[in-house]
């Protein structure tokens, strides 16, 4: 079985982001970037299938500038066999990303296309669903458990009401939620080995993909802030305040 897994380069989750004073975006230059954490979970899942003998080949794919190769190397260090880099310096929005992934999936014909449920930069939570829609494949989003058996997958999904289990025919797009697994730490020998693994470069043109209509970002601003309130010294004081506000 072949597994395709997408990874996105994003500002590291530990970075406190800064908004440019002119409102034109978020400061990205000189800021630490990493693989989107949900994508790490997706890659880890693919590795577990490979180690269990369920997956024979795992291919990582990214869309982005030259620097995104760094994240492909991380995916290869996890143990992916090879990688595909769709190069573009333009920011790619979900529908365009989905068109690219549709083209790659048609070329590679994986049984499972694993993705993170969302990227922690734009928080869109769209690309997996859009990719499966374009491919006319089933989708199983927000996965916390996946059981592969032959031509189907049983996927437990974290939804508002609890845990929902769906059975989908393969091929399918599955998006990883937080509790699917805990990604491993990369070891130096694996990072060294990854340098020798092949990365194939492509462009949107090579794939015959046209960028979709875009949302235009007009400005970026800080979120409304909450002011710190009062400290109370005792439960009596707390209860008095709550009663004053009519909350108890």
């Amino acid at each position, binding site marked *: 079985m072949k597994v395709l897994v997408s990874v996105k380069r994003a500002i590291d989750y530990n970075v406190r982001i800064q908004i440019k004073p002119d409102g034109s975006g978020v400061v990205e230059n000189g800021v630490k970037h990493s693989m989107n954490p949900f994508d790490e979970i997706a890659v880890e899942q693919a590795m577990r299938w490979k180690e269990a003998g369920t997956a024979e080949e795992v291919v990582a794919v990214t869309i982005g500038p030259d620097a995104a190769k760094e994240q492909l190397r991380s995916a290869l260090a996890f143990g992916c066999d090879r990688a595909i880099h769709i190069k573009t310096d333009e920011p790619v929005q979900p529908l365009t990303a989905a068109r690219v992934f549709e083209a790659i999936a048609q070329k590679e014909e994986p049984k499972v296309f694993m993705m993170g449920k969302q990227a922690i930069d734009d928080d869109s939570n769209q690309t997996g669903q859009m990719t499966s829609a374009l491919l006319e494949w089933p989708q199983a989003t927000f996965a916390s458990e996946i059981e592969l058996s032959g031509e189907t997958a049983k996927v437990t999904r974290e939804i508002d009401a609890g845990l929902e289990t769906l059975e989908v025919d393969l091929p399918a797009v599955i998006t990883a939620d937080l509790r699917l697994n805990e990604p491993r730490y990369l070891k130096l020998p694996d990072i060294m080995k990854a340098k020798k693994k092949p990365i194939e470069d492509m462009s949107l043109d090579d794939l015959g993909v046209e960028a979709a*209509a875009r949302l*235009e970002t007009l400005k970026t601003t800080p979120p409304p802030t909450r002011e710190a309130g009062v400290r109370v010294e005792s439960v009596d004081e707390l209860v008095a305040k709550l009663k004053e506000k009519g909350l108890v």
Partner: protein
Amino acid sequence: MSNKILIIADHLDGSLNESTARAVACAQQMSPTGIDVLVLAEDGASVAAEAAQIEGVSRVLQADNAANAHPMAALLTPQIVAAAQQGEYSHVLGPNTTFGKDLMPRVAAKLGVAMVTDIMSVHSAHEFDRPIYAGNAVITVGAPTDQVLVASVRCASYPAAPGGNSAEIETLSLDAELPGHTRFVNLEQASSDRPDLQTAPKVISGGRGVGSEENFKVIYDLADKIGAAVGASRAAVDAGYVPNDMQVGQTGKIISPELYMCFGISGAIQHLAGIKDAQTIVAINKDEEAPIFEVADIGLVGDLFKIIPELEEKIG
């Protein structure tokens, strides 16, 4: 250009989820010429009747189909696309519940259009604010005006539109071919007599400071005393004190209760992202340096195991 808006109803077990009325409140700010609510269910009569009461709704469209017994994006999408085209809607909206998050991008892709996730503020029918970077920045986006706009509504940003309406209910027959590749197996619902976490006016929450699954009983007891829903931080969920669906925060539930009272929660950024819209935040923590105090309206430093019994007694 007229703004004719279709809202996809989120519902479970024959009841309408309040998120639908919140999406209606958002839609009302888009200068709509009409707001229709689409109910896709096996038997949608009770849900449609509830939706018809929401102020601002023009019509409720009820499309019954045995395939809609459990909402699955792959099966709902072709029906929504058919309804959107049949009704010539300019906007198709859903709530940003897990139902809407799963569904709306699939609808957008099938319509071949970009989607706006998590509308938190409306400037015009095609210009909105939405959060990025876990709510640490807000972007204003302009969507193309020459195509259908598909979007999800950040429920915490909108109070539910009130009831009192009696919109007409029409049955709709949709000509759509549904795939057989996705099948419902089961839904494990945490059974609870407590109010629903996402819509409850009062929420009591516990974090790692609660210490264990057994200790969480004090949180439940206090919640029951004041009729509150119970939530938890990611740390408490990861430690196994409570099930996943109780998680409040960026990757869990984003809520906007009148009262949010949290015990033993330090206030990680991802947790704060889930409670920013609460009206009153009360924090009880033994660490006076905990970041939760920076956003709390009322803070009390102390041991939750001493404070809760005293609180219960004094609330009376």
